[in-house]
Every structure is written in structure tokens, then in C-alpha cells.
């Protein structure tokens, strides 16, 4: 078929892929360019695209102006702890709902999801009071528990769909061979659901890593800030030092890029299998 006006299918495929990739990467790349420019180059009009005299000065300001490593460490700890809590709790609940003959499992599931889906912003006010009364403001725990609840619905649904895919006979066989129910769960089911647990974990981690409003509210002290809130501290009261903010953003984006680059197949595959059957 010779339709001169249209490029060949192979080229079309390439163009399609390029659009998706550029759409995703362009903003980060533009920020990277900005971060390498000097203040004076940034003032020049018309604007430049490539940095003419690339400099790392902005990056050294990132580390001296704010304790960015502390922000990052807070983010890592909070996201990790809340992920562990969320996945453990969700996995137990998901397994009970799928396998253990509870009465009206659909109703229990709906109730769990309804409570967990209550808008986080509405919870902000009472959580602030609770955490203040418990003296937990500015601690990791003030964020760990709410973040675990935040990701519980999606984790439970993903894990339920993984448990449903494991043939019952496998567990029954293990139990006939003398395993207890918990033994079968530990030795047979858990290894098989590792990919599901992993996927749920990444979803929970990214949710916690990105959260802004509660982090802003429950950790008012600078040294307790997580990365998304910490980044906003680089702006002055009246000034917006774009090269430094850009450099800070790049520093903060690098860990995200590493995580999604390493786990890309898991995430896409997990959303495919878990998200759809829920």
C-alpha cells in the first residue's frame, strides 16, 4: 500500500513513542538546563535553551541554603516505614477477605475502603489535634500512620487480585501434607505473591514520597520537613531564585528516577493486573 502522504508504520511507531517520552521527560530536562545556567544567563532575553556556560554553582547553593539531606532522610524514613506498615496490614486483610470464609466479605471490604478513602484534607484538622495531644508533631510517626491509611485501599485491592490468582489447591495440598494454615500461608502463598507485595509496596512508597499537605501541616519544624515541603523553602519571601530551585528539584527528582527506572516493569505490570480487576 503506497500512501505517500503517510510515513511508514515503523516511523509512525517511532513518532508515537517519541511523543510519549518527550511529554514525560521534557519538563524535567528543561529544569535540568535551568539549573546549569548562571543567574546572568537566565536574565538574558530572548532566553537561551542550552546553558552557554554550564555551572554547578547552583548545586552547591542547594546544599548550603537548606538542609536538603535532612529533608531527603525524613522522606526516606517516613516513606519506608509507612510502606512496610501499609503492605503488612493490607496483605493480612486482603488474604483474610479472599480466602478465609468471612461473612459478607464484600461488605467488609466496602466499609474498609469507605473509611480509608475519607479525604485526607478533611482528616488534616483532627489529625493535627491528635498528633499535638500525643506530642507527635514534627516526628516521623505523625506522618507514617496517616500515609499507611492513605495507600491502604489501593494496596488491599492489588493484593486481593494477586491472592485470587493463586490456586486454592496449592494451599490445600500443603495443608494435607501437614502444614498448618499459617504455615501454608508463609511457605506457599507468600513466595508466590512476592510480585504483588512488591507492586503494592512501590505504589505505597510513591504515594508517601509525594504527599504534601499533611507533611506541611504536621511537621512545621524545618528539620522535620520532608522533601516536597522542603523544596518550597528555597523561595525567598519576595524572590524566586529559579536556578537554585531548579537545582534543588533535580536533586530531589534523581531518587524518583532511580526508583522508577529500576522497578519500571513491576509498576506497569502491577497496575495492569491489580488495578483492573479491583
Amino acid at each position, binding site marked *: 500500500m503506497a500512501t505517500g502522504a503517510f510515513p511508514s508504520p515503523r516511523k509512525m511507531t517511532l513518532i508515537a513513542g517519541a511523543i510519549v517520552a518527550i511529554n514525560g521527560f521534557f519538563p524535567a530536562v528543561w529544569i535540568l538546563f535551568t539549573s546549569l545556567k548562571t543567574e546572568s544567563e537566565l536574565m538574558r532575553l530572548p532566553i537561551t535553551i542550552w546553558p552557554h556556560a554550564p555551572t554547578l554553582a547552583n548545586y552547591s547553593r542547594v546544599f548550603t541554603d537548606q538542609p536538603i539531606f535532612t529533608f531527603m532522610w525524613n522522606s526516606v524514613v517516613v516513606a519506608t516505614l509507612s510502606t512496610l506498615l501499609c503492605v503488612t496490614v493490607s496483605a493480612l486483610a486482603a488474604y483474610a477477605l479472599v480466602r478465609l470464609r468471612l461473612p459478607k466479605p464484600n461488605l467488609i471490604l466496602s466499609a474498609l475502603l469507605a473509611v480509608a478513602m475519607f479525604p485526607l484534607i478533611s482528616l488534616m484538622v483532627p489529625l493535627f489535634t491528635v498528633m499535638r495531644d500525643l506530642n507527635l508533631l514534627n516526628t516521623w510517626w505523625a506522618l507514617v500512620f496517616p500515609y499507611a491509611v492513605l495507600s491502604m485501599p489501593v494496596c488491599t485491592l492489588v493484593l486481593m487480585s494477586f491472592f485470587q490468582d493463586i490456586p486454592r489447591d496449592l494451599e490445600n495440598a500443603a495443608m494435607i501434607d501437614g502444614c498448618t494454615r499459617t504455615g501454608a500461608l508463609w511457605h506457599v502463598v507468600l513466595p508466590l505473591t512476592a510480585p504483588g507485595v512488591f507492586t503494592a509496596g512501590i505504589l505505597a512508597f510513591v504515594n508517601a514520597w509525594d504527599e504534601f499537605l499533611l507533611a506541611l501541616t504536621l511537621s512545621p519544624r524545618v528539620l522535620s520537613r520532608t522533601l516536597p515541603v522542603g523544596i*518550597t523553602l528555597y523561595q525567598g519571601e519576595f524572590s524566586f531564585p529559579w536556578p537554585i530551585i531548579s537545582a534543588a528539584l533535580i536533586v530531589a527528582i534523581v531518587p524518583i528516577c532511580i526508583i522508577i527506572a529500576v522497578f519500571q516493569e513491576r509498576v506497569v505490570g502491577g497496575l495492569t493486573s491489580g488495578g483492573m480487576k479491583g
Partner: protein
Amino acid sequence: MARLSPLEASERRLGYLMLAPAVILLLVTALYPIAALIRESFSHNVLTEPWMAKPWVGLDNFAKAMGDPRFWEASANTLLYVIVTVPGAVAMGLGLALLANQPFRIKWPVRLGLLLPWALPLVFAGLIFRWFFEFQQGLVNNALLFVGLSPVNWLTRETPAFIAICIAIIWKTSSFAALVLLAGLQTIPKSLYEAAEVDGASKWRQFLEITLPMLMPAIFVALIFRTITAIQTFDIPKAMTDGGPGKSNETLAMYIHSTTIDALDFGYGSTLAVLMFVLSAVLTSFYLRHTRRDPSGGRH
């Protein structure tokens, strides 16, 4: 009701035991705060007036909200963000999913192109787009100048600021929709397209008659997730204009935040939070009514 066999009864006990951590976590971190929120919404509690003993004021706070123009404007803005960004993000997500659903030889650039905006914190996206829409050095205005158009005061005028914020939200949230829709696309059997090809149906007909109907469940999932988050819009307008210019683009979430954390009026802030929950419950129940038709979703 049939009596349970000993095995079944012990399984059920184990089931309750495994459910317990989830229930406890929800009780402490969600259910108790919800109850506290509702109680608070009926009381006068301003932290800067500690001599007041948090008196119960009945529906006073709710009456105040009904007569509060800032509440109505924030609600209207929130609904506008829902109306524009929910269909916008799902439509753009559909476009991205269709583009990404190709037999690429090298998969990672496309996969990461979809994953990066998804994994990026909303605030980061807000800051990046604020930079794009900056008046003098922003990329958008410089592009406009380059093609001979005049630059726009994006972030300091009401409607342009709303448009800029919506573009940022749609860019950021379309990637999750794209991932969900891509998953849906991959469940459509190839044989359907082959049969349509044999019948001589055009690509457009195939899209309308096969892709779209088969994709409806996935579109539905994307819509409901996006709606739930759109009602809570906070991060991106906060980072881009702080609700500005003035309060013209403030959302309900931003108003709640400034009432409680800045003005320290916890009573009225709680009332606003309850009203916001009502709004989101109304919108999501509208969706859930549709899913009820699905036989597997019904009660037994």
C-alpha cells in the same frame, strides 16, 4: 444458617485475627479523627482565644459557611477544577495510552515517559509549570513571542492563571490515567481487530466500535480515581499562585488549610472539612451508582 465445621470456624477466627490490624489502624488514624472532626464542626474553637472553652454552637458554623462568599467561591473553583481537569486528564491519558500501545523494540523510554510524571510529587510539577509560565523568562511566553504573538500575564490574572494551573494538573495526572488505560488496552483481544480488518473497517471505525466500548471499564476506573483526587486539589495551585491572584483561584482544600493552620480557627475549619466530605461523597456516589449495575458488584 448451616453450622460451620471446626475447620471453617478456625479459619474464620484466623480471618478476624488477620483483619484486626487493618481495623485498628483505621480506628485510630481515620475513624477516631472523623468523629473528632464532626464534633469539632459543631463547636467554637479558635486557638487564639484559649479563654473560650470550646462551646457547643450547634449549626452556627454551618450557617456561617452558607453566608460566607469565600466558601462559595472556593467550592465553585474546586468544582471548576473537577469539571476541567478530570475529563482533560483522562482524554490526554487516553491519547498517551494509544500512542504507547505499540510494539516498540526499545520499551524503556516510553515506559519511563509515562512513569516519571506519575511519580513526580504534585508540588514539583507545580513549581516546574510556574517556571514555564513565568512572565519574562518563562518558556511559554518566549515561545509565544517567537511565533509573533504577544506574551500573557499568566500567573497574575485570574483566567490565565486558572488555565495555567489546569494545564499543569492535566499534565501531571494524565500519566496515571494513561497507565490504567494502557492496561485496559492490553486486555483487548487482537483477534477482534483482525476480524474488523477482514471486514474492511477503517482504523477510526475500529477505534469507535472496538477500542472505546472495550475500554469503558478502564476509563471508568481512571475517571473515579481522578475525581477523588481532583476534589482535593491543593498542591499545584498552592505552588503556582498560592490560590491567586488574590483568592480568585483558591480551592476548598486551600481555604480549609488557611482557616485552620493560618487563622487557627479549628471549629470553622472542621465545618468546612465536613462540607468538603459531603461534596466528595455526592460526586463519588454518582459514579458508584453506575457500578452497581455490574452484577458482581451487587449484594448477595
